């Protein structure tokens, strides 16, 4: 588990440019370090020379227009992108110092440490309880008492315990879309991951559910490092500490969220956040 907690997140508002990626003394440790990552779908060059250091207990937002590679990038972080045929990569992504593309590093092990929440709520067609217990169970935890505890704790962590505690045995598909998404977050929390990847988690939700998920993200960063892809710039501004702006498969700018939104260094970033395209 992440041991570094209760830090104020304002501590590290120093500018970090993607090319230098310096580890300053005040900065939190890097969880994910992407170095010269390239990715191709067949002949399509989807990610170009990405360098991105992502730090512990922060919310890192990835923004950019459709097709800029932001979704591809986040799916590369837990190697889900490889479910598509014909994907090739070069460069490396270091997760806690280990290259995730290393042949000895199993994807299952990586994904046990790195949880994911998807664009569309995708609970299993099982009971709420079984949804949450899925992760611990597949990883060999069978003790009913411990499972009960994990389920409660995860549902509380995802701020949905009070809404579902009386009907843990009903099918997760009987819940509303917003509730389903928080069930999916709880499901990811159940294996107490180190990092949570969120791929446009609110794009299929109504405004009230979106707000709940955003509040949840704020709470979760106490204990988790969160990387969130969003096409909603206000959302990025509201909830993230750092923001990376992707365009045509490249990182145009990566900096403190305040800096990106108030005083971007690159003209293209300014054009995008001011709504001139995308």
């Amino acid at each position, binding site marked *: *588990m992440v041991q570094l907690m209760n830090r104020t997140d304002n501590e590290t508002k120093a500018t970090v440019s993607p090319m230098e990626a310096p580890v300053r003394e005040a900065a939190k440790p890097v969880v994910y370090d992407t170095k010269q990552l390239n990715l191709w779908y067949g002949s399509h060059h989807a990610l170009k020379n990405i360098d991105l250091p992502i730090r512990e207990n922060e919310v890192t937002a990835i923004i950019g227009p459709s097709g800029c590679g932001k979704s591809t990038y986040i799916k590369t972080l837990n190697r889900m992108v490889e479910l598509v045929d014909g994907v090739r990569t070069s460069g490396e992504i270091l997760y806690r110092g280990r290259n995730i593309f290393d042949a000895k590093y199993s994807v299952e*092990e990586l994904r046990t440490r790195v949880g994911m929440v998807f664009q569309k709520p995708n609970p299993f067609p099982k009971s709420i309880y079984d949804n949450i217990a899925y992760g611990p169970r597949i990883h060999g935890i069978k003790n009913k008492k411990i499972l009960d505890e994990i389920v409660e704790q995860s549902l*509380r962590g995802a701020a949905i315990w009070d809404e579902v505690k009386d009907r843990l045995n009903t099918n997760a598909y009987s819940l509303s879309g917003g509730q389903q998404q928080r069930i999916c977050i709880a499901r990811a929390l159940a*294996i107490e991951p180190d990092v949570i990847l969120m791929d446009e988690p609110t794009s299929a939700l109504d405004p009230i559910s979106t707000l709940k998920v955003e509040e949840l993200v704020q709470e979760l960063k106490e204990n988790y490092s969160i990387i969130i892809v969003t096409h909603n710039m206000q959302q990025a501004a509201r909830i993230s500490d750092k923001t990376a702006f992707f365009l045509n498969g490249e990182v145009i700018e990566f900096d403190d969220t305040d800096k990106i939104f108030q005083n971007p260094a690159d003209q293209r970033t300014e054009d995008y956040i001011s709504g001139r395209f995308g």
Partner: protein
Amino acid sequence: MVNPTTRERASVQELIAKAGNNKRKKVIEKIIPIILFLIAGVSVLTTIGIVATLIFETVTFFRQVSLLSFIFGTEWLPFSNKEPKFGILPLIVGTLKITLIAVVVAVPIGLAAAIYLSEYASDNARRVIKPVLEVLAGVPTIVYGFFALTFVTPVLQTIIPDLKIFNALSPGIVVGFMIIPMIASLSEDAMSAVPNAMREGALAMGATKFEVAMKVVLPAALSGILASVVLATSRAIGETMIVSLAGGSTPRFDADFTGSIQTMTAYIVQVSTGDAGYGTPIYYSIYAVGFTLFLFTLLMNFLASRITKRFREAY
């Protein structure tokens, strides 16, 4: 809030590490695909088994009977004591008679049903008719055979007094009814796949539903319809029980539909129910006939898949 530090039990990640069944998982992940591949291989083995069996025993047959007299012979007299003759043409003619009648019966009715279902029928009518067609397709052929022998033949005899008890007409018609559901449902699938925009385009110019069906939907769905007819024909060629029960066992090389005939399939059944000794030419002849039958149906299936591929509409 999750707070891993103030909890009495170990963290989930620690529990997972302790459960540590990674090695077993890795072995399973390696072995399962191999096992599944082997299982999938059974279907290939089945085909190989069929082809090998047929070829092997057929070759044995042709050691005893000349290939030319088999292919071009117009007499099939395997049980003759004096001089057995193995010319397959009469059996092929018998099969073709049944197939011809079946197709003549099934194509108009099947297509009409398909057009009705896809262009005219209300949702409610469709909900009733489609399951009934499914039931029609699910009736065992032995039941159809019994029906042909005990009902259709007597009824036909009142219309055609010359009709023999065993004939080509009655089983042909019943085989036709058996394949109607196949033509109807496959053709309907093809017609339903025609996009509604095409229909609306014609309807908006004042075409009637009939004109839309004939001039827009049928041409667009033609490949699917053709494929369904070819597949149904293949079924008719391979149909066994109906023709065994109602067609008779007289291999004949003529164009008569009212008298007893014999198809390739019915001959195999006749020999199987009799007591032809293992190793005799009669025993091997069922493989030669089976092989011929197999080639016929293979050709039809091949044709059907070519039609669907070649004319696949790109809407």
